[in-house]
């Protein structure tokens, strides 16, 4: 029966956002590689495959890991079952394993369908496990498993690159970082109410999203900080005037 090892590549440097954060999700890829069973009519032993659909063990909707990167490996669905399968009847071209659905469910809860890749190598055909021991099963694959694991790791790295280096993602993160930095600086210089903080955060983000080149971030930071250095707050009225001026320094024009 299928035995899998899970490989998770984590590059987390930011607070974990809410589920389904899309582009703002951490640059994480959950890469699951292991073995699975398949009908001998469909796939031969040692065949490496990518999974594009994961069928639950019981009732429930299937899950679909999003494919973004090319691969020579064929694709198929994988049925996650709670126990071994004794024959291939009705299996068609599906793989069978015991954990893909669980992994996929967790990834869908915290990330997106774009953040998971599943690769499998056919280890056995249903029913064989009764007659063959584990050592015999794995010995039959020879070097095929480790070769496939290396290919899968390369594939997973390309997929990770696709996610983490997305130009819109990089710009979004820069806008977010800059806005947070300037917000923190402003809060150190002037006392703002919750509503005022919200207004300033909005204005910072709106202005930053219009910056096309890195120097614009730097210039605007200088301008804001120069103003804050000489601004005199203290009273509610004075703080409010400072906020208004900061908002004026943050144009939202297109």
């Amino acid at each position, binding site marked *: 029966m299928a035995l899998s090892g899970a490989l998770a590549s984590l590059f987390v440097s930011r607070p974990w956002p809410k589920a389904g954060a899309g*582009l703002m999700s951490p640059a994480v890829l959950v890469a699951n590689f292991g073995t699975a069973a398949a009908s001998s009519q469909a796939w031969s032993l040692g065949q490496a495959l990518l999974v594009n659909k994961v069928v639950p063990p019981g009732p429930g909707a299937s899950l*679909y890991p999003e494919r973004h990167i090319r691969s020579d490996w064929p694709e198929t*669905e994988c049925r996650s079952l709670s126990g071994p399968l004794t024959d291939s009847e009705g299996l068609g071209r599906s793989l069978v394993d015991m954990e893909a659905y669980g992994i996929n469910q967790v990834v869908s809860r915290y990330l997106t369908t774009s953040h998971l890749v599943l690769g499998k190598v056919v280890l056995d055909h249903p029913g064989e496990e009764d007659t063959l021991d584990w050592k015999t099963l794995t010995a039959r694959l020879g070097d095929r498993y480790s070769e496939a694991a290396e290919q899968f790791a390369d594939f997973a790295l390309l997929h990770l690159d696709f996610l983490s280096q997305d130009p819109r993602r990089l710009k979004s993160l820069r806008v977010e970082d800059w806005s947070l930095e300037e917000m923190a600086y402003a809060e150190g210089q002037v006392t703002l109410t919750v509503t005022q903080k919200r207004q300033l955060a909005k204005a910072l983000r709106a202005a930053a999203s219009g910056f096309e080149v890195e120097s614009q971030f730097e210039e605007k930071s200088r301008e804001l900080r120069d103003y804050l250095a000489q601004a005199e707050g203290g009273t509610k009225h004075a703080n409010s005037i400072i906020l208004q001026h900061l908002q004026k320094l943050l144009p939202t024009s297109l």
Partner: protein
Amino acid sequence: MPTPSSCSTSKSSCLPPFSHLYVEREVRDHPLTLALTQRLPKAEVVIIDRYQELTQRRSVAWSYQKRAPKIVVAQSPSELLYPCSDVAPNFGNQNFYYAIPMQNCLYDCEYCYLQGMYNSANLVVFVNQEQMQAAVRAKAKELGDLYLCIAYDNDLLAFEGVLGLVGNWVEGLRNTPAATVEVRTKSANFRMLKAVPPAANFILAWTLSPSSVIARFEAKTPPLQARLESMFAAIEAGWRVRLCLDPLLPVDGWKESYQELLKLLDQRQLWDKLEDVSYGAFRMNKDYLRKARKARPDSSLLQAANSKESRGLFTIEGSQVVLDMMSAELAKRMPAEKVWLT
């Protein structure tokens, strides 16, 4: 800073658009499904139970999908015609409906409301086109007249080379004069309709923007000149053609940009050949805007939409001046009854 259209992962590593066809089990043998699989022989076919399994989950990333969308083939839900909201222009028609032959669009416009409407950027093609057309015929008969838009939630003409759905609708409703059908597009794809004789009850509506706006905010769309040529080809072929200047955006140098566009249209002596013209500002409701900003956190345009207009929709400060200018300019060129503010 990376440009929005660049791809750091080498292009040869990324899957192309339409690499996968997700097909509902019940429609796997439908002629339209077979036509699609024939048209896209390299696409990986994945059998699904219900299209909502893919499109209605929160855990999909719009932007990643948008880079190379996949196609979902499905049976449309039981409701086939929807009444239009007053945010959309009814062009003086009381019985204003829309149908969704396809969900989502090949293009990637920064201001598009679809990114606030749907979770998934993958295209959903519905196979029951004939059933939708029958519903239109029945509704037109019931009401006496019907104004229908079939390309609000998609750009059907842009997809014409893949499936020919516009041609299918034209033939399906050509003999239903009580139904007037608008097909809105930004495509330069009229050539795909050349073999279809014009239908008196169909209006092909082109959305045009200044080149600077296209370059900044309308990713993957054809350039202005190509759209114009397509539009003229349609006029010459005898189609009713509408011009849509929507959304008008208060970009830096907006006056010069829009004047330049109008001048180009003057030079081509377009105005008296048009069915009518519509124009409008960027507008989006609160929920769509919130979701669109999440799908596209880098968008300066969506971040700038902080003003509320009279209908309670969010718009961009400065839009009214652009609308006023366009209103005055259009009044010089077209009779008032042919100009629609949306």
